[in-house]
Each structure stands twice: as structure tokens, then as C-alpha cells.
């Protein structure tokens, strides 16, 4: 049963198993365990980024494609929903239209990029995607009428997802059962399903071919696999899932703008999530996403405390100033890449065997 759900891809490490269970359960009960707008927000973000990172791992870890255009697809998904909700009003039909439109555009674009440029060297492909992505970002900012330009779009969600909407008139364990809660569980469920689907894809015969191509494209061709076809399909799948993640984000935050969906920062974030977690292991993406989103949201508070402690000490206080949280995030990245060369999951698994 479990095997079937996880597509035979068992954690293969006690600690990893524990961590995963904690994450899945933790996210499920988060709204009640840690009530409050911020924690709910963080939880939702974690869900979305798990999906995004996982979809990127399909490219990076399993197929060996380095693409910097992944956030573009994320953005397409987000803007799809955002524009639809802005134009067609806060209706479920609008949501549906937005999601479908986003999917179509994303997949088409991915297929195009794939067929044209997956033949070139990895690093050149990376740079081409970088170019395409930034071109797309420019386009977005040049069409303010449609995308709201730099300001992005602020729109209302379908009534059932708003804070004002209250469910089964009342509260559970002191938590108001309002639309945000509905929204959160919508995001949670969707994310769970998407990750499991990806897990299945990478453990399917198709997935095994992807890994072969990553290892040795020349030989893969020689024994009869058309690498371009496989790579392109993989990119399309990844793009589709990324777009869905984007749609989820748009559905959660009721606002969409360039630097939360299209910016290079996000691109770097998901890269970090995948590599820190462990490339080529879906679970790595999950761990990485959780850790990073946490760090981004709570490191600052932590430093605040440290800073109090060090008040007075000249340079140190400066170093531990809450505004320097990025500094420590950076240090953390470096240490991670240092100590988990194969990513956290990789290290956990080695430890075991």
C-alpha cells in the first residue's frame, strides 16, 4: 500500500522517514497547532514551494537539465489565475479558466524551448533559458494593462476562500474556521497529490530513461532512446507542475507580482532547495523547501534574540543584527553544500548503509 503510494521509492533511512512523516502531518495540523496569520502563511508557502522545488528536481536531479526559466512557468501559472480573477471577477470559473490557460501556455512554451535548444550544451542551454526568462520578465513589466507591471495584480478570491467567509459557523480548538482555512487545505491537498504524481513519474520506466540520459546521453541514444524527445517531455511535465504551483500561490496570496513569481531570487531559492535537500531524490526537494522557507521567515526573529544578547559588543552586534539575516542564510547555504555534498537526503541515506 505505502509502496504503491510512494511508487516503491521508500525513504531508505529512518531519520528521513521520520522527517517526512513530521512534515506531512505537521503541515496537516499546522493551522490548529500554530494558529495565526503568519504561521498559516508560512505553511501554505511551504506547500507551494515543495511542489515547485520537486518539479524542478525532475529537470535538474533526474534529467540533468539546468534551466533558469523554471520560475517563468511558475509565474505563468500564477498570472494565469491572477489575470483571470481580475478580469472575470472572483468566480470559480475564473479560477478554472486561469489554471487551464496557464497550463497550456507553460507546456507550449516548454515544448518550444525544449525542441529548439535542448540539443546544445548544458551550460548554453542554461544561459538560453536565463535569457528567455528575463525576456519574459521584461514582457510582463511592459504590459501593465494586463499584468499590472511592477505593481503586479491585487484581486479578490472566490468568496469561499476569503477571511470573511466562515465555515460551519464557528471555531475548532479556538481557531476560526474561515475561508483562509479552506484555502489552506485546498493548497495542502493539491500539493500532496502533485508531489506523489511526480514521485510516480520519476519511478516509472520513463523516469529510469531520464536518469540514463542524465548519466550518459550518448549511450542512451546508442541503445535506442531519442534523448531530445525524453528531455522535452520531461521539461513539459516540469513546466506544467510548476505552473500549477504558481496557480496555487496565486490562489493563496490573492496578489501576484513579478518579484514573487518571476524574479531570479526565486530561481536561486528553488535551486538551493533542490541541491541542499539532495538532487535526484524527490524527498530532497521536500526537505529543502521546508528548511529554506522556514529560514527565510524565522531567521530574522532568531537573530533578534541573538542581537539582544550581544548588544554592546561592537562588530558582533552588527553581524547579528536582525537586518543581517541574509548574511546567515548565505553562510548556511555554504555550510550545507559543504557538509551535505549529496544533499541532506543523500547524507542520511549513506549514514544508514
Amino acid at each position: 500500500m505505502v509502496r504503491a503510494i510512494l511508487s516503491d521509492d521508500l525513504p531508505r533511512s529512518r531519520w528521513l522517514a521520520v522527517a517526512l512523516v513530521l512534515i506531512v502531518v505537521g503541515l496537516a495540523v499546522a493551522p490548529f497547532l500554530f494558529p495565526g496569520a503568519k504561521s498559516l502563511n508560512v505553511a501554505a508557502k511551504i506547500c507551494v514551494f515543495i511542489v515547485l522545488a520537486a518539479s524542478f528536481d525532475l529537470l535538474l536531479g533526474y534529467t540533468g537539465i539546468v534551466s533558469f526559466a523554471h520560475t517563468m512557468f511558475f509565474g505563468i501559472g500564477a498570472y494565469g489565475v491572477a489575470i483571470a480573477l481580475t478580469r472575470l471577477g472572483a468566480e470559480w470559473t475564473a479560477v478554472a479558466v486561469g489554471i487551464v490557460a496557464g497550463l497550456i501556455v507553460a507546456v507550449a512554451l516548454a515544448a518550444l524551448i525544449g525542441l529548439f535548444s535542448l540539443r546544445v550544451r548544458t551550460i548554453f542551454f542554461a544561459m538560453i533559458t536565463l535569457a528567455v526568462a528575463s525576456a519574459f520578465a521584461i514582457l510582463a513589466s511592459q504590459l501593465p494593462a494586463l499584468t499590472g507591471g511592477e505593481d503586479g495584480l491585487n484581486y479578490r478570491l472566490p468568496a469561499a476562500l476569503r477571511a470573511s467567509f466562515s465555515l460551519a459557523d464557528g471555531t475548532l480548538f479556538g481557531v476560526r474556521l474561515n475561508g483562509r482555512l479552506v484555502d489552506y487545505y485546498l493548497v495542502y491537498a493539491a500539493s500532496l497529490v502533485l508531489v506523489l504524481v511526480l514521485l510516480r513519474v520519476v519511478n516509472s520506466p520513463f523516469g529510469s530513461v531520464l536518469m540514463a540520459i542524465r548519466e550518459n546521453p550518448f549511450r542512451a541514444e546508442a541503445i535506442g532512446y531519442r534523448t531530445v524527445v525524453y528531455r522535452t517531455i520531461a521539461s513539459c511535465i516540469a513546466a506544467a507542475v510548476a505552473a500549477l504551483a504558481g496557480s496555487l500561490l496565486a490562489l493563496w496570496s490573492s496578489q501576484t507580482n513579478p518579484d514573487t513569481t518571476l524574479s531570479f531570487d526565486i530561481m536561486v531559492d528553488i535551486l538551493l532547495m533542490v541541491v541542499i535537500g539532495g538532487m535526484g531524490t524527490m524527498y530532497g526537494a521536500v526537505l529543502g523547501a521546508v528548511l529554506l522557507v522556514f529560514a527565510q521567515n524565522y531567521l530574522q526573529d532568531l537573530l533578534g534574540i541573538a542581537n539582544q544578547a550581544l548588544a554592546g559588543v561592537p562588530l558582533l552586534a552588527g553581524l547579528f543584527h536582525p537586518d543581517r539575516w541574509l548574511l546567515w542564510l548565505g553562510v548556511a547555504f555554504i555550510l550545507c553544500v559543504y557538509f551535505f555534498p549529496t544533499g541532506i537526503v543523500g547524507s542520511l541515506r549513506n549514514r544508514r548503509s
Partner: protein
Amino acid sequence: QQQQPIKIALIYGKTGPLEAYARQTEAGFMLGLEYATKGTMEINGRKIQVILKDDQLKPDLAKAALEQAYGDDKVDIAVGTSSSAAALAMLPVAEEYKKVLIVEPAVADQITGEKWNRYVFRTARNSTQDALAAAATLKDENISIATLAQDYAFGRDGIASMKQALAAVGSKAKIVHEEYAPQQTTDFTASAQRIFDALKDKPSRKIVVVVWAGAHPLPKLMDLKPERYGIEIAPGGNILPVMAGWKQFPGLEGAIYYYWGFPKNPVNDWLVAEYKKKNNGAPPDFFVAGGMAAAMAIVEGIKKAGGTDTEKLIAAMEGMTFDTPKGKMTFRKEDHQALQVMYHWRMKKDPPDNVDLLELVREIPADEMKLPIKNKR
């Protein structure tokens, strides 16, 4: 009930490119509270508790931060934020939680325009006010103007409102050329060439009006010696560190929102003295004044409303006139935009240091700038 503190959230882009500005806003805000409460930090016996939140200039975080402030921290009133995009994302939240939001220092017109809702007040000036002020400095005789702005929404809006502004102040100047350069432009040779070609044979006085956010092109334009065609450049006011770079261009003119030397009133005198004391001699800049204005508006409002009940607050603040380092400001009833004076400045001959730079040409009174009402209630 009476004794529980008044909670105020200050949300701003504390980390990220505009960090320096954010720190000014915070400093100004705190000084404002101190001044308005005569150092007691209490209003009608209720302590003031300020909660600081960093949105890293990111709209989603700004939104989240405001939700957290209203929802978790149960603040009575919130202030923010540095980036217009972020501020726009915050507006709906205020409406959702039915709590007052004071926008400072974001300038986008929409905030008190089509995106406005009745919980939103703004102490900061908006782009149109900037434009009107700039126009007010270009009233006299006939002038040929070429504009230079960044090629994206803000830049284009800026020029658009510039045109309206010129009309509004009844200036005879005409815009003969509009130049838009990419947002990140660092090399202005091409733009300058186009502008010079457009202006050089004009008989009248020739002025290049620059509307620019970020690294200012003025020095680079000056390097290309516009004076050889008798072309002047109107850069518009800016923060002190930037204008310090313009020292070697005496006679530059433009309009500015705040310069520490200009306002003559007790509030500003106190601010300048106090701020210099706290920051070993450095005078307050743009955002310090803004922060202080926001704080003073809040205190005034709560006093007037006799409490922090939202409806009472709104009632009290609509049309309210309050003191700020820039003298009196008034929240216009219709769109809650604070109407305020602006300043027409000129660069001193050779400034003694990096902060004593400008001389006042004249103060532009608020009512001279006919600010259109762009929101619908």
C-alpha cells in the same frame, strides 16, 4: 480596557536595496511619537507600543506582515511601506480587517486613486504632487522641455502627470521631446544625443526634465556638456547623498518634498536639532520627515477620536489638519491624501559640505497645486 496599550505596526522594507530609507522612516516615526506625546509615549494615558515589521520590499511579505499585524498582534493602526507595489498589496488587507492604514512613504497615485479604500490614509506625497511642484518651478515665460524617464509604468505615469501638471499650473512651457530609457540604463550617451538633437535648435529656454528612480543620470548628462547648446537640466529633488553628487553643478533648480534647511517651524527645528544629536551631526533627510509626519498624524487622530475605534478614527482624521516638520498638512476628505507644501530649490554656489547644499527659491503653497481627485467612494 483603558489601560491596555495602543498598538501601532510600522511595516517597511528594512532589508533589501532600500534599507537606508527604511531606517530613516523608523527614526522619523519614533521621533514623531516622542515629539507628539512630549516624550511620554502615551496618549490619553494609554502607552504606545510600536511593532516593527520587515517586508523586504516584497508585496507578498508586506501583505502577510499586515495580516499578521492586524490578525495576530491585534494592532490598532498600521503604517507602511517603502515600496509602492508592496503598499498596493496592503490596501485590501486594511479593508478586510477594517483597520486604519497610513501609507508612508509610498508615492504611487493609485494608492489614493483607483485602488483606494476608506481605511487608507496617506501622509506621503503622491507622484502627481511631485509633478505639480516640478511644474510650478517651470511656469515662467516660454520654455521647450524634453523629458527623460525610465521605460516602465512608473516612468511613463510620471511624465503623463507631468504634462497634466504643466497644464494645471497654467505653464506656457511645451514638451518637445519625450525620451524613455530602459530601467537599468547606465550609459546615457544615446538618450542624451537624442535629447540634444531634439532641443538644440530651439530658440527658447531649453530644459531637460528628469524623472528617475535609482542611480540618477544627472552627472552623466552633465559630462556630455549640455551647456554647449545652452541646455539646462531639471533633475528634481532627491535624497541628500544623491544631491551631494551634484555639488559641482551650481544653479541647478528643481522641486523637492523636504530639505532640512527649508521649513521654518518649531517642529522642524526640534527635529533637525534632535536628529543631529542622535546621528552625530547628520541632518534629517526625506524619509525621516515622512516618518515623523505619519507619527504625528496618528497621535493627533487618536487624540481627536478619543480612542482607537476604527470608525471614530476615520471620522476624526477625514479633513483633519495636523502639524508636521513641513508645517501643517491636511487629510483631504475625499481621498485621504495629505495636502502639503513643496519647495522650489536651487543648488548653492559652492556648498561647504555634503549636507548643506540647497537654497530656497520659494515655498510652493499646497493650494497652488490643484491636485485632482482620482478615487471613487
